[in-house]
């Protein structure tokens, strides 16, 4: 087990290396000059040149890359020229809202999607199945910003149940925190629900027609237990995969939803950083988001082994 985890973590290194290279060059090859942006349109070319020198932007690209990369190896993600603080600090400050949003959206979608997918599969072809699947199509078709605006209109402006937008950290009280998070999390959660419910349905359909389900009926097991014990655990791997992917995407920042609800999360950070040509922040965030995505996937892979004895290691 330990050896497996260590190998998996080591195997992240080449992936992160590629991400670092791509992130760096992609950003440095796009037009726009941080020094010019910082100084504004009134600045003279001399002043801009001076700032470029200060920031090290006048050096050849490979040298800039080498400087950044050696910094990374020492755990230094660089310095944000806009926030005037270390990139890692800025990233961690913005992680809170994003993480909270991701966890809540995921929780909402799991609670809705898994029972929905299961009953659609059990009642295949009936009205219930058709209604659920129509809702799923609708959920997938609605863009998250539209869903967000709609919820905002209804629950914040009309019913005045929740604040329209903004953010309070968890440290200011659970409800103070939640009342800002519920609407954005629901907007994202509904879309996630659609994706997860579809996967749950098709995965359960496969399993429910398996021979061992017939065996369980033949043993006199109750239908409910057959569905939730015998079938669901067998159907879990594809569901877990989707859950992991979706969660990974959420952590990388739900840019649109964060913007609509004005949540100071990773998505907002990236947008501001791009506007300000804050190279170090963009690069660092891409790298850290990739790392969290990979770690979530690693955890999902480890869960496979718990759910299904056939993928426990030692055997292929």
């Amino acid at each position, binding site marked *: 087990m330990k050896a497996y985890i260590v190998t998996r973590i080591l195997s992240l290194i080449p992936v992160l290396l590629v991400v670092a290279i791509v992130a760096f060059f992609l950003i440095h090859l796009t037009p726009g000059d941080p020094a010019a942006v910082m100084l504004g349109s009134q600045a003279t070319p001399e002043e801009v040149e001076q700032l470029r020198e200060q920031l090290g932007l006048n050096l050849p690209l490979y040298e800039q890359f080498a400087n950044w990369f050696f910094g990374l190896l020492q755990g230094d993600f660089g310095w944000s020229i806009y926030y005037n603080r270390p990139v890692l600090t800025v990233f961690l400050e913005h992680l809170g809202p994003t993480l909270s949003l991701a966890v809540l959206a995921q929780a909402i979608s799991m609670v809705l999607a898994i029972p929905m997918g299961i009953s659609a599969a059990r009642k295949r072809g009936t009205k219930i199945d058709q209604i659920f699947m129509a809702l799923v199509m609708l959920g997938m078709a609605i863009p998250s910003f539209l869903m967000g605006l709609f919820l905002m209109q209804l629950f914040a402006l009309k019913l005045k149940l929740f604040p329209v937008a903004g953010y309070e950290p968890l440290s200011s009280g659970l409800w103070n925190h939640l009342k800002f998070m519920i609407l954005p999390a629901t907007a994202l959660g509904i879309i996630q629900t659609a994706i997860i419910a579809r996967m749950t349905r098709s995965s359960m359909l496969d399993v429910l027609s398996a021979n061992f389900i017939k065996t*369980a009926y033949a043993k006199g097991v109750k239908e409910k237990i057959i569905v939730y014990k015998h079938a669901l655990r067998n159907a879990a791997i594809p569901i877990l995969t989707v859950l992991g992917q979706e969660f990974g995407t959420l952590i990388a920042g739900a840019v649109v939803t964060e913007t609509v609800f004005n949540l100071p999360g990773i998505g907002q950070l990236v947008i501001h950083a791009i506007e300000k040509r804050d190279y170090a922040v963009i690069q660092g965030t891409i790298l850290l988001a990739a790392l969290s995505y990979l770690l979530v996937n690693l955890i999902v892979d480890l869960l496979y082994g718990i759910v299904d004895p056939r993928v426990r290691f030692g055997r292929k």
Partner: protein
Amino acid sequence: MANSNLLEIKDLKTSFLTERGLVTAVDGVSFSIKPGETLGVVGESGCGKSVTAASIMRLLNKDSTIYEGEIIYKGKNLLKLSEKEMREIRGNEISIIFQDAMTSLNPVYTIGDQIAESLMIHRKLNKRQAYEEAIEMLRMTGIPAPEKRVHEYPHELSGGMRQRAMIAMALSCRPSLLIADEPTTALDVTIQAQILDLINDLKEELNMSVMMITHDLGVVAEVCTRVVVMYLGQVIEETDVESLFDQPLHPYTKGLLECIPQLEDDRSKRLFTIKGIVPSLDNVPKGCRFAQRCPYVDEQCMSESPDLKEVSQGHKVRCWNYDKISS
């Protein structure tokens, strides 16, 4: 008379609602099983033998299956029982084992969990007692080191072991009737013989009846006392195992027997086959269902369907011309 039968199927008709309309897979099947006997149900793929078995357990999709007729088990009509009453019969009074033990065992639970489950449902044992009993059952089916095997998953066992585990699971609550649906088809020949012997031994030991579904007449000769031959959803011949091999009456049964290669046969001769293919269930012939493939077919066969007639003590056949062709 009726009381001496453990199970009596009377005019069973099982139909499925499909997109192409109602398809009748089992059409007027009647036979009975006495306590302690092994009844063979023989026929080729699609003849309705597995559907008959699944009808007894009511394992077919509730929403799209229509049962008619009666299945009397110990005086109760199984087709009239509530779902809850039926659950108390399944795995407790009547058990079934399937052809493919690999896919019939749940891959994510240990075989111990799966055997213990029946015991916990029907005998209300707690988990520890159920596990002890599961180990006993595995030992009874000849699995070596059962206290170790009980904690293993299906994929860790060989094919023969898995079928033994299936048998242990089916028999854990000591049923009165075991339905074995082609239990040896997926196994290699040496293991087949072992599994048949095991079923036979356990039948004696646990004093139960066995309904052996197979397309292999070798299996019938090995374990059965009486045989029902099915063709396209109907019983076409029913007799004891000796007269099945010595004096088969129905041309289809004769054909099946002729298909078996004999050691003393001339090797240059082609193996006998029954010509034609089984008609599909949504296009059943009007007269005798075997008429199109029968070498003895006449006018009457094409237009009128024969009944299953008892022609001598315990020997029934569904054929117009059995007496003319019996030589």
